[in-house]
């Protein structure tokens, strides 16, 4: 397999290993919440309301809305993260959690005893407390530019979160935000496939045999989600070519 050879993965990827990798998680049943709704209008499965309010404000600075495409909140990223933390990923079901725990080197990766759920619970409380001490108010009440400054201080580790290193918390939040913006809508984010429309990723199409050799082709078909493709299958039960 070729690696992710973005500059960062080789040069800086080891700097603060975020919690990235666990079992697939299904979205639990329940009425679909409305992305973009005020946090107190959403039935959170993991977050408390103060946590949800803070996460909502923070992720919309990581991926803000612009004139063309909505940002992380409009894409449902807070709901995506909430659902992830309420299921296998949050529970760290695929995380090796045997002691002893040592800090280790950056090259040795994540070495904290916390599941993602615990990391958020502790990290969000520390984040809120640090902002109150540093800025005298709640994060969500800061001006956007000040929010960005605060997030940068968390990212760099200038902020002291106590037992959870602030950069580990930040990298986990950033990675989960990107996931929520670009993953299939079945997971609760990427509402209206906004992340895919923004870059031009077509989603769950099955193939491009006729198109791959057409060089520099502007590809304009609207993206398609797994749920849409499943629905197409259900309505057109055409026999497969498979034996």
């Amino acid at each position, binding site marked *: 397999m070729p690696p992710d050879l973005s500059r960062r993965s080789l040069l800086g990827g080891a700097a603060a*290993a975020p919690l990235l990798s666990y079992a697939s998680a299904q979205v639990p049943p329940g009425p679909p919440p409305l992305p973009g709704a005020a946090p107190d209008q959403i039935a959170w499965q993991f977050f408390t309301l103060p946590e949800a309010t803070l996460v909502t404000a923070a992720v919309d600075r990581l991926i803000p809305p612009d004139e063309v495409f909505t940002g992380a909140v409009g894409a449902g990223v807070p709901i995506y993260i909430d659902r992830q933390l309420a299921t296998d990923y949050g529970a760290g079901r695929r995380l*090796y959690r045997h002691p002893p725990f040592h800090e280790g080197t950056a090259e040795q990766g994540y070495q904290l005893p916390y599941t993602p759920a615990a990391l958020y619970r502790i990290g969000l409380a520390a984040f809120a407390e640090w902002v109150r001490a540093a800025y005298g108010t709640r994060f969500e009440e800061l001006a956007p530019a000040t929010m960005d400054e605060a997030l940068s201080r968390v990212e760099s580790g200038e902020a002291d979160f106590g037992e959870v290193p602030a950069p580990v918390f930040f990298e986990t939040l950033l990675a989960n935000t990107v996931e929520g913006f670009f993953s299939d809508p079945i997971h609760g984010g990427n509402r209206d496939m906004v992340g895919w429309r923004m870059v031009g990723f077509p989603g769950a199409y099955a193939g491009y045999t006729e198109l791959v050799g057409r060089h520099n082709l502007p590809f304009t078909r609207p993206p398609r989600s797994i749920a849409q493709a499943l629905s197409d299958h259900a309505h057109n039960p055409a026999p497969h070519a498979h034996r």
Partner: protein
Amino acid sequence: MARRLPEVEVVLVGMGWTGALLAKELTDAGHRVVGLERGVGRQTVPDFQTPTMHDELRYAVRHGLMQDPSRETLTVRNFTGQTALPMRQLGSFLPGIDLGGAGVHWNGQTWRFQLSDFVLRSHILQRYGPDILQDGLTIQDWGVTYDELEPYYDRFERICGIAGKAGNLRGEIQPGGDPFEAPRSAEYPNPPMTQPYAPTLFARAAAEVGMHPFPVPSANVTRPYRNPYGCDMHACNYCGFCERFGCEHFAKASPQVCVFPALLGNDRFELRTRCQVTRVEYDRQARRATGVTYIDGRGEEVFQPAGMVALCAFSIHNVRLLLLSGIGAPYDPRTGEGNVGKNYTYQTMSGVSIFKDESFNFNPYMGAGALGMAVNDYNGEAFDHSGLGFIGGAYIACYQTGGRPIERHPVPGDTPRWGLAWKQAVARHYNSTISLSVHGSSMPHRGNYLDLDPTYRDSFGLPLLRMTFDFPANDRLMSEFLTDKAVLIGNAIGGKVEAARRQGLYSVVPYQTTHNTGGAIMGENPRESVVNRYLQCWDAHNVFVMGACAFPHNPGYNPTDTVGALALWAARAMREDYLPNPRPLVDA
């Protein structure tokens, strides 16, 4: 006390590529074989079907088809003075789980090694003299030659239906192929893939700077195909979900597509899933194995006596099983003695990105795992290393494996990591960026090895494997040289060219490759190797060890073609020579 089963003729530990190939070859010869798989069974239908398989989060990011590190992982450190710590989540490499192993989620990049790779030490000394070898490099000859392996490469490529263009047919250089490849006895079984725009621009630029581009040999087959086992494959449709995914189309070669349809149902073969082998039972006096002990799906410990045992698990798991079983002497980096765990090698990766203007539409999602163009002008011994101070090399490739946006959203290095500028840069560059891979060799060094961790254990209470590894200076020099060559091609393509060089210590965090090689290496004698030229243990003639753990060094190519060829080569030795008359096949 383990429950004891009746003895079987052959037991295979692990049912990925090598287990499937051995099971097929040995049952065809009339032998009775039991295959033990630690995971569950799975098949193309229903397990790999679209659209649910096309879920980047579930499979590529959360590793839905990969080994579960909560149950078994390994510990890592860069050098012996450090305390190794567990890899608590997957990162740098992604071993598979369940039937078919990593043969399900590989990309299908199917490369042969060079003539010189199999006689590396002799070749290097003869061509350059000893001074080119940096201190601590432990390269050696493999004990088997390319010419001996060639028919087995050819057969594995036919089993997989590899799509490509030969560059060297029996010594005749062929236009359109790789002029630096070792001679082939025959053309590939299927024609090359249709190349997208970015690899085409890469190939044009590489030719402009004097290199020799050709289509990457691909296990994503290009037309309906029936392999030598009678298994049918369909043409790849470039869906862009190969690596980290199962193929829904019967188009990517895998044990599921290419072997199991002709194996499962054979009365001489018994597959047992959810059976985790914990050790090979080794009779030290008799210097032979009596069978294997495993934990079955109900948690019961079972002893399976066997006349012959083949370790067919992923490379590093085979090494761990040897260590847990006490077969062979563990390698000691202080004295250089012992061989089990020695010569652990990896792959030395770097990359180059070329950011083009917005008029370019590369449509990266129209992809396949082994879709792309490459050059081998600076791989292995294709070029003269005189005065360079290093050995080895890399292929430089422009792959288009898929455009899944969680993992792939390239932005120039001066872009902020988040916020509006990041978002707009992602939108701007997603469809107009070319990525080049520099897929470098990994030379063995006396400080890089595998042993058992003294502290951390798996879910059965057994010691984890401990990996001690950093990139040797030789490989860092190689990577600098090769990355410069990729930059040269990037400049000829034109655009904003940025190199991601191989810097810093080896890190287990960012994905690099699942090409973990060495640790149970083959060789000419028991002083310097674990297995002989037929992958038979020097210390137990009825134990064979398959996989890339047998590589004494890792050349600048993907390992699977050689893993398959070696398994088929070993299978012939078992079938025609060993099983009719069990004994050491090479005198120690």
